[in-house]
């Protein structure tokens, strides 16, 4: 039924794109893990992995931390999402705009801010110690990693769950109610199952991200996890231990397996609904006491998850902040530094918006091809794209240099890898999984009947995309755009390999370069705050667009 030439060629094009910009560079680096000392093919290195007590322990730790983080992140995300979707609640805008921010943790400086706040001699523990004489080890060991990761990544669940809840067909709930279902039964039988695609999409992202995350364990100096083990071995001076790459391969395989399991969890069920745009669950008003309760929950969670950013802001205005609850004094000087170097901000805006745009276009077509066509190898597209999540940025960066450095650009005879657009491509490839999961979740909720009826009425594929799918998927597409865009603003590990002149460098790189000196902390934090503000403004703007769209559509429905 879909013998469409356009779709097939799109599938081939996307496949080629992923092959050239993801598979080839990774292969350039990872093939080392299959070589023995003589350069012959071998599986011996993988045998060594399973023989090593340290690696097995690391594997177990990574798995434990990732699973626990999904649970804790769900505890943060579910109440916020539910309040927003179910009730007439003024706090919703707050949740939907601020709930994003934790994803944007600028490299290095974010870590310093977290430690100044939650560390064993951070503000909170200094206060606790002064008042009550004890400390809480927020940032120690595996539990510390779980705590920080959950704060950092819970927005993945929040965003996807809200999108999912908002696309629940109201008539489903109404029919259930008219048939006598209510209360918890209604929630369990209707709301919960229908919101599953979004929740699973978010939860699997959290799991994957935490499983592969390097920054947080490094910040807390927890070495006995897989990602830091890989990183420490790959980036040691003057040595090229194949085990680093073996761990990399294991990370990729585990990630693909996790995506597969998530797919199984959703498998065999139909989540699509016919009507769209009558938008979301039936909204209720809070009873007075419920309102206070809801507000206090919301404020508590938001305060907790945003506290690193409050510390970041203090750091950017503070002079010296050392072993004290607050900085010694405040100044605007750091921002002077920031604005004198505004080229970094401009670069970030340019790179990340192009990259995020590429992402949603690719994600739209990939999810369409996977969910709506029978093209052979379509699932492979999905898995390959998702595996980007598991590739350490450093590895992808080295792979890009290896693959693209020997080609020269035709117009200025400079290496392809040193062209700024390659930074855009690497950002797009690394952030594609976020957009992809978001698109996948919304498309899964749209019934194929809508497209089929349009087709039977003679509509072209392009018309169906333009008039039906894109408008209905708007929420998901925007969510994907924002997630890709905002997480790309703070990406460092891959871009740092590709930056060849400072004038082409993005903001995260500026933060890195300031954070290498004692005096650079303030300006580094300043850049971090600017990055967060950019993302917050973008998120707020897209919220407005979505809401306007919903209202418009509501109006049209009435007129019809």
């Amino acid at each position, binding site marked *: 039924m879909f013998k469409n030439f356009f779709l097939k060629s799109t599938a081939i094009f996307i496949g080629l794109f992923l092959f050239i910009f993801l598979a080839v560079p990774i292969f350039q680096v990872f093939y080392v893990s299959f070589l023995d000392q003589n350069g012959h093919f071998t599986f011996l290195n993988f045998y060594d992995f399973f023989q090593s007590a340290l690696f097995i322990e690391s594997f177990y730790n990574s798995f434990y931390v990732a699973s626990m983080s999904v649970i804790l992140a769900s505890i943060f995300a579910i109440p916020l999402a539910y309040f927003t979707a179910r009730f007439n609640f003024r706090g919703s805008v707050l949740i939907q705009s601020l709930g994003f921010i934790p994803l944007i943790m600028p490299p290095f400086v974010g870590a310093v801010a977290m430690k100044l706040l939650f560390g064993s001699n951070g503000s909170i523990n200094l206060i606790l110690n002064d008042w009550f004489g004890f400390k809480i080890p927020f940032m120690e060991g595996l539990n510390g990693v779980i705590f920080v990761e959950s704060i950092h990544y819970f927005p993945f669940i929040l965003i996807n769950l809200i999108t999912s809840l908002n696309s629940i067909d109201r008539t489903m709930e109404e029919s259930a109610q008219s048939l006598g279902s209510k209360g918890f039964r209604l929630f369990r039988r209707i709301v919960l199952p229908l919101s599953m695609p979004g929740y699973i999409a978010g939860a699997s992202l959290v799991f994957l991200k935490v499983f592969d995350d390097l920054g947080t364990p490094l910040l807390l100096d927890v070495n006995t996890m897989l990602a830091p083990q890989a990183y420490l071995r790959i980036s040691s001076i003057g*040595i090229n231990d194949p085990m680093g790459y073996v761990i990399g391969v294991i990370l990729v395989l585990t990630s693909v397996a996790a995506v597969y399991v998530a797919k199984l969890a959703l498998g065999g069920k139909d989540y699509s609904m016919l009507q769209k745009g009558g938008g979301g669950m039936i909204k209720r008003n809070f009873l007075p006491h419920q309102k206070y309760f809801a507000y206090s929950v919301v404020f508590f969670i938001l305060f907790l998850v945003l506290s690193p950013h409050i510390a970041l802001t203090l750091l950017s205005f503070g002079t010296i902040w*050392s072993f004290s609850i607050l900085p010694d004094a405040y100044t605007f000087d750091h921002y002077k530094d920031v604005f004198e170097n505004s080229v970094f901000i401009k670069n970030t805006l340019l790179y990340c918006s192009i990259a995020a745009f590429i992402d949603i276009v690719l994600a739209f077509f990939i999810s369409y091809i996977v969910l709506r066509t029978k093209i052979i190898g379509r699932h492979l597209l999905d898995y390959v794209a998702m595996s980007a999540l598991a590739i350490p940025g450093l590895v992808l960066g080295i792979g890009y240099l*290896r693959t693209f450095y020997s080609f020269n650009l035709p117009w200025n005879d400079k290496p392809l890898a040193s062209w700024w657009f390659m930074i855009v491509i690497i950002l797009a490839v690394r952030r594609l999984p976020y957009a992809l999961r978001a698109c996948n979740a919304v498309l899964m909720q749209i019934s194929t009947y809508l497209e089929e009826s349009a087709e039977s009425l003679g509509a072209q594929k392009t018309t169906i995309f333009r008039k039906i799918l894109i408008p209905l998927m708007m929420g998901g597409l925007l969510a994907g755009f924002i997630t890709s865009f905002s997480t790309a603003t703070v990406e460092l590990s891959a871009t740092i390999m590709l930056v060849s002149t400072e004038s082409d460098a993005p903001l995260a790189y500026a933060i890195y*370069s300031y954070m290498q000196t004692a005096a650079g902390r303030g300006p580094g934090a300043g850049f971090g705050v600017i990055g967060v503000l950019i993302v917050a403004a973008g998120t707020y703007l897209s919220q407005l667009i979505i809401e306007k769209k919903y209202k418009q559509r509501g109006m049209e429905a009435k007129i019809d």
Partner: protein
Amino acid sequence: MKKILAIFVAVILFASNSFANSGSVVIVTSFPKDLSGKFKAAFEKKYPDITVEVVGKKTTAGIKYIQETSSNNGTDLFWASAPDAFEVLKGDSLLAKYTSQVKGIPSLVGSYPINDPDGFYSGFAAAGYGMMWNTRYLKANNLPSPKEWIDMADPIYFGHTGMSAPSRSGTTHLTVETLLQGDGFNQGWAKMKNIAANFKTVTARSFGVPDGVNSGDFGVGIVIDFFGLSSIGSGFPVGFVYPTVTTLVPANIGVITNAPNEKNAQLFIDFLLTPEGQEILLDPKIRRLPVNPKTYSKAPKDFPNPFKDSSIGAAVKFDVLLSKGRYNLVNSLFDVMITYRLDNLRAAMSAIYKAEEALGSKNNAKAKKLIAEARALVSALPISEAKANDAEFNKIFKKKRKKAKDIEKYAGTRQAEVEAEWDKFVVDNYSNAVKKAEEALKAL
């Protein structure tokens, strides 16, 4: 005739000068903006027609970048601290020889040669390891500031100190190697482990240590001097001291093979070594030790001067060849025994501390013996000194080993295999040490 010759020479000089003094120079550096920016500005002021392009990368990333891009090289200079980073590039024939004509630079700082004896890279500033501490932290915890390495092994600092891993930072590696050469292989490791047992953390980045001390996350850190001195210069409540056993090492710069702007690159090296370039090092945000002894006359009052104060960095005759031969093995050994098993090490030592505290000045022969055994278990090494220095064995840890015949004696032995063995040895010893210490405690 002489006149004509003079004019001829002048014309050639002028021509070559005007040729050299334009265009750009591309520098890959691990140095922070505070340092590279100052030099860039001063150099561009002196040579207005040359643009300096600074590309900041971590040392490891910088090496990888230059290795990966060598087929189509666009970089003129590599500029970083650790001499071993330059050794790696030199080994891959990625550095071009250049000896600067600037006069007045001695051949040694402390006991370390300032320039590469083969002429592939030049030192422009010196640095040595020491200890930095947060005064607020020490005051709040009632701790004295340390003076010597051995102070760091005192149980009072348990959980209060930090260091970076030698596999992460070439300068940290030199500290460990200095300790091993100063105290001997076995004694040195024992001391290192006693110091490490007090660590709150082993940071993955070398700058993580001054960061942690500046924030007050831990009290004392083992750092390279300029991290300490520039933190003081930036106003943090911290102090810094050199212990007697330290090695001064030069921070270096070298021209890359096939540099597109070789002349400008050489000009930049010369500039670093001139008095005006050397003075920039004294900036309160930089604070590195100049290699030109004359520059110290312009330094602030209590600025350390290794050319005058012979106690800095002279206690150990640093054997560069020995260090080079077992470089990766020492890194790997440190990671296996300390970085990855810090929790086990801490558990062992804290059990020993407890037993020793209970023992006090009591004369309990059994407990004393058990404690001594526990300490011996912690100090025990999974490898003998002879094997650690064996060039054949070290080949297992080398990066390039394309052919089996390169390994010969240990053909077929893999680094991962060796490390797994070491790991088992170390973990067993640490947990047996805990048992012994607990037994001692019971005997008291």
